[in-house]
């Protein structure tokens, strides 16, 4: 199967994709974009969260064929022209990154939250990130990071 998908603004064409591969597998193993992670590949952990046509989804459950002709944004596409996105900076500065395996998925989910709700309450943050598991941090510094990113994005 040939997959043609726009990822992080660049069109990728990949041949010989087996139909049973997921979008996650295609990104990681065929397009050289291993930033999205494979902690469970069952839609339970959110580590594979990417934007698909503007909405955060678990890439592990998107069959390769369903990515044809779509637009995908991964963690590798959040920074613009070498500048980290405020949410990426905030995660580093707030100490929200320990092993970091959950981080890419959380960044996409947090990025999406802040696009929709620029000044979220703590409960809104928790609800929006409830599909992303983290085992290292207990989530406290992740909350700090999202608040920090929200505050920075609020300043013009």
């Amino acid at each position: 199967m040939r997959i043609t998908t726009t990822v992080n603004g660049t069109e990728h064409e990949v041949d010989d994709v087996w139909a049973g591969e997921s979008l996650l597998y295609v990104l990681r193993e065929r397009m050289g974009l291993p930033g999205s992670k494979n902690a469970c590949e069952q839609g339970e952990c959110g580590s594979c969260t990417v934007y698909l046509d503007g909405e955060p989804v678990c890439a592990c459950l998107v069959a390769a064929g369903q990515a044809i002709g779509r637009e995908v944004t991964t963690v590798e596409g959040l920074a613009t022209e070498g500048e980290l996105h405020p949410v990426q900076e905030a995660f580093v500065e707030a100490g929200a990154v320990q092993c970091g395996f959950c981080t890419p998925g959380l960044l996409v989910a947090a990025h999406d939250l802040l696009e929709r709700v620029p000044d979220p309450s703590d409960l809104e943050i928790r609800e929006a990130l409830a599909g992303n598991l983290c085992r290292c941090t207990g989530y406290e510094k992740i909350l700090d990071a999202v608040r920090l990113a929200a505050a920075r994005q609020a300043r013009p």
Partner: protein
Amino acid sequence: MRGRSGHSGPSVSTDAGTRPATTATTTPGRIGDSPLRPDGTLKVTGEFAYASDLWHDDMVWGVTLRSPHPHARIRGIDITEALTVPGVTAVLTADDVPGENAFGLEHADQPVLAVEFVRYEGEPVALVAADHPETARRAAARIRVEYEVLPAVTDPRHAMDDDAPAVHRPGNLVRHLQLRRGDQSVTAPVVVSLDVEVGMQDQAFLGPESGLAVPAEDGGVDLYVATQWLHVDQRQMCLALGMPPEKVRLHLAGVGGAFGGREDLSVHVHASLLALRTGKPVKMSYSREESFFGHVHRHPAWLTYEFGAERDGTLVYARARVLLDGGAYASSTAAVVGNAGTLGLGPYRIPNVAVDAYGVFTNNPPCGAMRGFGCVQAAFAHEALMDELADAVGLDPVTVRQRNGMREGDRNITGQLIDSAAPVAELLQIVADLPLPPQRDADADLRALPGSVGNTTHGEGVVRGVGYAVTYKNIGFSEGFDDYSTARVRLEMTGGEAVATVHTAAAEVGQGLITVEQQICRTELGVERVVVHPKNTAVGSGGSTSASRQTYVTGGAVQAACVAVRDVVLARAAASLGREVSQLRLDGEKIVGASGEVLTGLAEVLGEDAVEETREYRHRPTHAIDPETGQGDAHVQFAFSAHRAVVDVDVELGLVKVVALDTAQDVGKAINPDAVVGQIHGGSAQGMGLALMEEIVVTDGHVRNPSFTDYLIPTILDMPPMQVKVLEYADPHAPYGVRGVGEPPTISSGPAVAAAVRAACGRPLRRVPIRPEHITGT
């Protein structure tokens, strides 16, 4: 102590840990600061290479065929069909293991690939290499293994019965630790007792087991792998591959969490065997389901405890029996029994003690190291019993613990002197004095109530409960183990700037060790730019990233190597300046005099030279305990923590919302204060998870929930806000006074949550994880 100096090899350190830093540098990012971790940017851009991200041109994929039976004899393995699958390049079984077909952390009792018997569901039987992971899986499914299913030992309470099937040897005993201290016939006016059961927890690190084995021209192999101890992996690999260490080179790949689950081998020998056979790089990466079978779990435990006390609550005696289900192979069960036995009565003064701790073999999944290592299970028992004692003598839970809490100068139940701060009473007071969260108001957001987005409660039937727990944990390896680490530090000028490079084999698993290594170099060398060399077996062992020991032991090695480098540099500077070495310091890339005056620059002293030193660091020795009495100086350091949990419980539906989980912990010296708090947050979450929701369900030797659908770990909606208070009572025997941080929060958190739920619903709740039906009693 022996010592060799010079650049060519490691040198046993002298007491570098107690020598005060002769450099009080002003370098930013030194110890006590919270500099950002050096891999943070790579992790947020998705460029950090975890073991599961590794890629090599030409690589093929390896897959493991595992036993579906908890206990069976292998009558035959037929790989002919599997070999015919297009794209398959190798199918291997036990016959293909060139060295010893055995590995294990404490005993080499586990086969690399099963030979005659399989002893647990998931035991590796065969390997396949193919050009696509799906091809490899399909080929593995076509390997025909003829099993004769055998009776399995699945109830550890009967594993030592005379008629129990033998897993390895009759009696199925891994270790019995017997501890007797004081008067065994003493009585007391107040006696309380209980039985507690702790379910099997999983480390659930997010990064799946993964590695890339690259066959080398010298006939050896380079393995890039996520692990906790490169050198112990190397030792076992050498045995199995029949090769010397020079030909088995390990490189630490990015690790996605560990928590004890990567201490045992997983893909290491398997990927290497396939690589050596096919001549191609072999990538192995487990799915989450396979991961649940691919690593050891926390020992489930059955604990029977009794305390005798005076009427004022002062403990007179304690008796405890602890049973740990070690599963099919020994792993680190003996050491876990050691901890549960020697530390399992909690941080209390108890003059008369009898403890029997057992680790047994069964055909259940193998159990081994997980953060807290035997103390977690025991804490659920001793803390629940302290609450019973409090009730029996009419004291509150904090006072009864403070009354019995250890202090510096006490001896613990093995007779070991607690020779530095033991702030049990103070830690409890701190958490007790923290402001309580406000009571829910009538308009509380539903998401803040038990059941959360399940919309289950609107406040009716919700009762608040508060619970406390306190613990102590040994730091470092014990019972006489030769526990050390090695560091190589190099200082040179590069592009006009002084650069220190630190090279250890100590595994960074997310905890922030690499940042600590940098901070120590900045402190000791007065140089801001510190490069952390990739971690591999080209330097001496860093010891295990476990037992909360790396900041202490690898920190000590890095400090010692830095001091050695500094000594060389200052000696050169002294000679060229005509000054005494003792008058000189390093700071800000300069050689500085006693009053802070700049005398010359590092650039001038070093020139084109690099100064490189390698040092080993050992903590004070520990000792084996007496086999009859359990007495001895088994441990080298202790760390103390206390938690207070506040929960809201819907007592009709049995739902729990943890409203607050606050803690105080003595960390000796916070090298990186932010990272210390992060570790405490994470450990608290894992303890809470065990108290409320985490359990690997095993029946008849079969794992019933090997997925995140049914093995539930706390999400951000489950976790409460956590206040953390850090004490810094230095351990004078440790570098900078540090105490290990990672494990204590995992130990005192769960029992505090359990106590709070008990307080809310009024039920004894003797099993964790606590389920809704336990709370409602239905």
